[in-house]
């Protein structure tokens, strides 16, 4: 029985899990940055209308 | 205030709280029966799902009864602090100045008397259903008598942590079941050893050690958990 598929399988699952674990916070950061930009925009707009 | 008077007031507070909890439990007798009925139903499902072969049932009896006991305990755990948390009684207890650890311990003892003891008392019937050999029945009852208090003690930490959640019950089982693994292993091993007429006292010793350790540690952890949840 060839063991190669098991080795490839183990390493690719490992790579996918660890890659996802590394990328997830970056995606989160992107959405937070977007939220903050929007927040700043809203605040600036309200400041403009007030003055 | 000397220490004697202080310890006297502590034990009085402990007993008063214990009596109050038991009284409240007996006022709601039907609710009291739910975990017990649950236990009976779960155990009776096993012969239906696996088949009535007496040999097989005897083999799996310790595991089935113990797992059913774990499930029944977790089901009843949520009530441990729930009503007192929701109506603010728990906060009043904290303000009262009595150590929260003592309050937690009183409530844990009450919980065991209401939810754990019935399991121990019912176990002969369950053993009968599951065709457990009579020579290991005594050990089965002993493991439940020593083990179910540990379940209440460890469970109280989980309840303390999840009490501020509206639907903490589902999370609670995820939190406490992994912590119950050693108890399940040791208790069922004791019963199986007794069934095979092997020495089993060392397992009971381990369980007792677990009980002593959890009595000394768990109330503090539960109190800390409650403090976090109340903050």
């Amino acid at each position, binding site marked *: 029985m060839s063991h190669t598929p098991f080795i490839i399988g183990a390493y690719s699952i490992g790579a996918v899990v660890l890659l996802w674990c*590394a990328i997830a916070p970056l995606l989160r950061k992107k959405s937070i940055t977007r939220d903050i930009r929007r927040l700043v925009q809203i605040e600036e707009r309200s400041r403009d209308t007030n003055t | 205030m000397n220490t004697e008077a202080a310890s006297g007031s502590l034990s009085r507070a402990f007993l008063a709280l214990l009596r109050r909890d038991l009284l409240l439990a007996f006022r709601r007798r039907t609710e009291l029966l739910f975990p017990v009925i649950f236990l009976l139903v779960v155990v009776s499902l096993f012969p239906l799902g696996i088949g009535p072969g007496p040999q097989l049932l005897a083999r799996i009896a310790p595991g089935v009864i113990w797992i059913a006991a774990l499930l029944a305990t977790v089901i009843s755990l949520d009530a441990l602090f729930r009503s007192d948390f929701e109506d603010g009684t728990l906060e009043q207890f904290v303000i009262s100045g009595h150590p929260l650890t003592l309050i937690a311990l009183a409530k844990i003892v009450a919980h065991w008397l209401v939810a754990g003891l019935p399991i121990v008392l019912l176990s002969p019937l369950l053993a009968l259903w599951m065709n457990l050999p009579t020579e290991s029945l005594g050990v089965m009852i002993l493991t439940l008598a020593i083990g179910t208090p540990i379940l209440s003690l460890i469970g109280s930490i989980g309840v303390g942590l999840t009490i501020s959640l509206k639907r903490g019950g589902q999370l609670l089982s995820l939190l406490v079941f992994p912590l119950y*693994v050693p108890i399940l292993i040791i208790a069922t091993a004791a019963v199986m050893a007794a069934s095979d007429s092997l020495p089993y006292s060392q397992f009971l010793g381990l369980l007792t050690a677990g009980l002593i350790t959890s009595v000394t540690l768990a109330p503090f952890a539960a109190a800390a958990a409650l403090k976090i949840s109340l903050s």
Partner: protein
Amino acid sequence: MNVKTEKISKPRKNALVMFIHKMGSPPWFYNFTGKFIPWFWAIFIVLTIWGLYLGLVKAPADYLQGESFRILYLHVPAAWMSLLIYSTMAVLSFIALVWRIRIVEILAMTSAPIGAAFTIVTLTAGSLWGRPTWGTYWVWDARLTSELVLLFLYLGVIGLYNSIDEPRKAARAACLLAMVGAVNLPIIHYSVKWWNTLHQGSSISLTGGSSIDPSMLWPLLIMAIATKFYYGANLLTRARVKLLEQDIRKAWVREVLKEKKG
């Protein structure tokens, strides 16, 4: 709007206390750790490539287990990490609960998903190693069973942390749970190990009874160090994002993001 200047009332403090004090300040932590992350990733990648080259290409096949031995260069370091991260999380939790330092709370809680990821890798790699070695994907072997319970412990911490709305309360509750789990973990480990011998489970040891050849040991060690850098980089990244998330309305967050844009 000068957010970054901190007034230090006592000028004479020793360097370590000053460092800890500074690490407690979110903007300082954010900027300081930001410098390390790329280096950690770089070291991780270099070490991984080197370790995998030695392990997958250079090292000879094991004479008992054949090629499937190569899975262990992933499985074993991941298993070590799963335990190391849990104990790190427990120690951080203790510090967080005693001294109530927010950064430490965040570091403890962001450790949990990384530890869970390593536990999942350990389990899948272990079961894919088990198929050619034991003949089945899953055996209730002591190591695999302990890892499974460890995964449940991680999931409990993550679940509790994510269920409570108020972030600091959530962190403290989950920190306490992590500590309770850490007290139980050795008991769980030994009871499972003993349960396994009791029921006479699988008896093939990890190394298959063969003494480890140095050519097999080196890639294992390199991978073990590489995974630590992965943990460091990932942990700091997650902690920084968590800080941004919690401080979304604070001035330093905008300052930091403006700097990056400009």
